[in-house]
């Protein structure tokens, strides 16, 4: 159980990150905005998962492993998908 203030500060962090991601998108930084946007989205999700969804204070290992497990599955999906799609039309 967290006290009210901690939740409030997490929320402030989330709002700031949202503002950052919107501002960065408007800047002419080439290919970086998408990388930054995804990194910020990952950070925001991390905050929601750990604090709002209490993963940080979970004792049992099974709860802490589920999200990394899903991430690992996606990593495999993405790698295999792009290993296929990126080389359609032949390897130069």
């Amino acid at each position, binding site marked *: 159980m967290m006290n*009210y203030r901690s*939740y*409030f500060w997490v929320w402030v962090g989330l709002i700031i990150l949202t503002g950052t991601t919107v501002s960065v*998108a408007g800047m002419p930084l080439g290919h970086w905005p*998408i990388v930054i946007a995804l990194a910020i989205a990952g950070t925001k999700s991390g905050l*929601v998962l750990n604090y709002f969804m209490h993963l940080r204070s979970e004792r049992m290992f099974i709860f802490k492993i589920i999200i990394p497990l899903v991430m690992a599955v996606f990593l495999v999906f993405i790698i295999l998908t792009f290993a296929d*799609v990126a080389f359609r039309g032949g390897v130069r």
Partner: protein
Amino acid sequence: MILRSLEEMDETKELVFEEVRDDTGAKLGMWLFILSELILFGGMFILYSVYRYKNPIDFHHASRELDVILGTLNTLILLTSSLTMALSISAIQKGSRKLSAGLLVATIFFGLLFLLNKGIEWSTKVDHGIYPNSPILLERPKGEILFFGLYYVMTGLHGLHVLVGIVVLSVMLSFLLRDKIHQTHFVPLENSGLYWHLVDIIWIFLFPLFYLIT
């Protein structure tokens, strides 16, 4: 007389029902469900990534037709609803039933606000003739057709999840008000909160990928 003595014998027996509770099991069940939901949306995100990889310019052009202000507003609405959700659970853990109910009402309100906003966005798009399989959309370049197809399906499925979440939270509110959820038994509220945070997380990724393509 025999009947009466039998009745007397029955009165000395008591059936005791023990409440069967498995809070950890309930929570694990919800997390496993969340895992399946992540794979559901994850698959669509992978589809999006391939089509965007193949049609970067079309995706950029199509994305500019979405309203960033409404999208940002929706993001802020859902983030705040997650705050009120977390606070609501804290409140009932501390035994503040009225505060918990009030915060739960606020969460539901934000959910409805989100759907209203989404409805406005969709209806303006439809008014401009942009919807799946519309003649106007089919005239556009292939990448833009793909973008809007993904947009409608993914935000639509997400919106459906928000709606289901609102219904679930309303049921939880009725439980809270009838004292079926209270300081020593609040796992249903906690699990509903987990679902609601998941809906928030999905939008956290949908927002930059559809609205902020440079």
